[in-house]
């Protein structure tokens, strides 16, 4: 349940339970559904979803609820009759007046709030893991992305001592070059991370290294931002093309090290 606002979900479930218990009518259920979804889209996620997306979802929800309400003549009557009574019957005169005042006030408030939203820099979507090219050239050597693998990975089985040396070299490379952005603990939170947009990758995240092949990571290390396709907004990314600074061996070693440090393994070759 990470990523959701649990107290809100529990509260909504409690209200729903109360409605079942009180045998609420269809109109109440419709109003509740709409309100609950509005609250869910707006406050339900720990990382807020974009306003535009929430608006689309809510629009679809509204349409669905209207379709449901008008799906049969009986249901339409069931939904509209409380409204008709509210409007017609003299004993509801006061609530009706309150509603007539409240709704325009709400609309006015909404427009006012919309006009006073603090200005924001325009935001653009960005592919986080854009599709890699079929082959890359690093230090003059061409690699087939589909088949290339870390040339030292097999040492893990064949020669553990040599493997440890490559790991240690990778550790040196990482802490001489990478941690300013990707962080000491590899959480993407290095001392320069706050000044960079897009933010540096978080290697602790189970949705990053494990879903990438070692060759993909090598591509990102060796060719950096300048090697990204346009969808990855290469003009914004501070990832250097490390082939300018590091040998091929150093780049494969640091590749080994970041997987090892986080206890992940690269996605296997040919696995899609």
């Amino acid at each position: 349940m990470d990523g959701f606002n649990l107290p809100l979900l529990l509260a909504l479930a409690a209200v729903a339970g109360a409605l079942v218990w009180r045998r609420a009518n269809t109109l109440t259920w419709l109003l509740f559904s709409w309100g609950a979804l509005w609250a869910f889209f707006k406050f339900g996620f720990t990382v807020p979803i974009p306003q535009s997306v929430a608006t689309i979802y809510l629009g679809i929800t509204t349409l669905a609820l209207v379709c449901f309400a008008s799906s049969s003549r009986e249901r339409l009557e069931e939904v509209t009759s409380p409204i008709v009574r509210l409007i017609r019957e003299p004993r509801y005169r006061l609530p009706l007046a309150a509603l007539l005042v409240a709704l325009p006030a709400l609309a006015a408030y909404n427009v006012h709030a919309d006009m006073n939203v603090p200005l924001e820099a325009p935001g653009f979507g960005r592919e986080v893991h854009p599709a890699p090219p079929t082959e890359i050239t690093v230090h003059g050597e061409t690699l087939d992305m589909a088949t290339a693998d870390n040339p030292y990975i097999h040492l893990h089985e064949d020669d553990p001592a040599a493997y440890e040396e490559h790991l240690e070299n990778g550790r040196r490379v990482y802490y001489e070059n990478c941690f300013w952005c990707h962080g000491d603990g590899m959480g993407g939170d290095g001392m320069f991370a706050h000044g960079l947009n897009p933010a540096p990758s978080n290697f602790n995240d189970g949705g990053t290294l494990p879903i990438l092949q070692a060759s993909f990571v090598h591509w990102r290390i060796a060719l950096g931002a300048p090697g990204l396709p346009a969808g990855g907004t290469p003009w914004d990314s501070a990832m250097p093309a490390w082939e300018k600074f590091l040998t091929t061996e150093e780049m494969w070693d640091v590749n080994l090290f970041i997987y090892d440090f986080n206890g992940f393994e690269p996605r296997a070759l040919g696995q899609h």
Partner: protein
Amino acid sequence: MARHGISITAAHHPPAACSAAPRAVAAAVAALLATAPLMAQVDLGTEEQRAAGKVVYDKYCGQCHGDDGDGNGYATLRVKPKPRDFTTGKYKFRTTPNGMLPTDDDLRRAIEVGLPYTSMPGWPNLTSAEIDNVIYYIKSFSPDFENPDRYGEPIDIPPPLESTEESISRGRVVYEEQGCASCHGEVGRGDGPSAPTLVNDKGDPIKIADLTQRWTYRGGPTKEDIYRTFSTGLNGTPMPSYADSLEVEDRQHLVNYVYSLGDGDDPGYGTLITAVHAEEPIDLQNGDALDALFADAPMTRFPLVGQISEPGRNFYPSVTSIEAQAVYNRDEIAFRVRWNDLRADTTGRNGPSMDVPMWDEDNGIGGDAEDGAEDAADSGDFFGDFGGEEAPAAAEDDFFGGGDTGDDFFGGGDDGDDFFGGGDAGSGGAEFSDAVALQFPISLAEAGSPLKPYFLFGDSQNPVDLWFVNLTYGVADTFRGRGSDQVVPTEADIVEAVTSYDQGEWTVTYKRRRSSRAGISFAEQQYTPIAFSVWDGFNRERGNKRALSSWFYVYTEPSVQQAATLPVLRAAFLVLAIELLVVFLVRRRARQRAAGSDTAADAVAAAGAPAV
């Protein structure tokens, strides 16, 4: 603690029960207890705990602090301040008196929270037990932790005084009397006359705290943190303890004064400058009118970080943020930027295309510092021939064998060692001047397209314009960048600038015509990408060795602002009209039905059953 212990012992012995023998026992117990707290402080953990701590240390700490705890890890050469050398037993941030060892809680805090704006992060991923163990292991690096005499009781930190005007002005008097300004500067921007000369007891230059930027305080931003620093000093640095020379109350007033210098606990970094419209002309030569123009323009602070993507990397930039504002009128647009700098370096050279030898970033990697300084002086002579930033980029490139970033250049890393091995800021000082640049794309991408030039001085397809000011000359020069190694002077647009340095703060105000044929034009309601570079000559920053920002935006606010009243009223009346219409229709239909049908239907409707 000791006295506390005795009083508890006494309290548990009612006077009536105090015969001679129990009294002797009580005395012995009290004597034991009196030494017990000191003994208890020497807590080096068990062998298992230290071994478990070593595992944590080797994974997370050794790369900076060294596998042997001597502060010599892989990263050490490229960070400032340098990682703590645990073998010295000296710690800056403690609750214990000057010269004493820190408590375990002090160490725990440094590990959990980290030291802001240094390479020491907080470690929220470590468990409490892991931190305990790693503290035991860290303590094992210095024999001082075995010596009970090096332990001191944590100081008392009284609740802070309210920041009244009297308290702050008393604090200001203390600030002056104690000579704080000689290092921290008159208004606390870390620009005192001694600031450039400060070193720690290992001889490493240290950057003094900028008291106006509380979020960068290594020891924390609260009044309690500030009081603690006054009262304990920072071991191994020139920051003394005032525990003996200042009364508690004066330290509290000083806290309030220092606190009043800051802008807040949080830098409040923004992403957008709002350029406001003005009717008045923008006259750079009329300082008062210019200040009045900018007085109403919102100020945005942007983070700056080191340029580490291209050769000439800067791992420890001096300047960590810049503030910016913008104003425009019918024809012109003006930008004002401000940042703090511990010294105005206005005699050296600088330029966005100046070459920086490989390895210049390293604190003396591959050669000792003295050689480096000597060589730096030599190379200074070479540079001198080019007459500063006026030198065409091409000439600089020729000298250094091409700005190309291929293997040849880096293969020559050893040459780099010979050049600027460890030339230090403090020694030469005036070799490089302070400088600043605004960066804009030369044209906007199509609407909706995220396309921008590469934020590091542009790329071959998408150039940038740089409004560069070398603060030695204080005038703006324009450069066009097509990549870090392709930055050349351009005369496309005339950009004017005025500069001033006041109490540790640089202010640079630029002005240009809003429209341009060669570069970017600033139309109303336009979002224009903008980025910043700052060079601190004192830190030997020049060329690509600079502090920089990502792309941000400047938004030219419409000159005529729409008032909210009309749309708000419109929305309210529209909703009201719809409501009234619905009410009217429902009631009319009901009336028609009542008139045209029998009363039974009405009764059914009133009962809430479906009426057909």
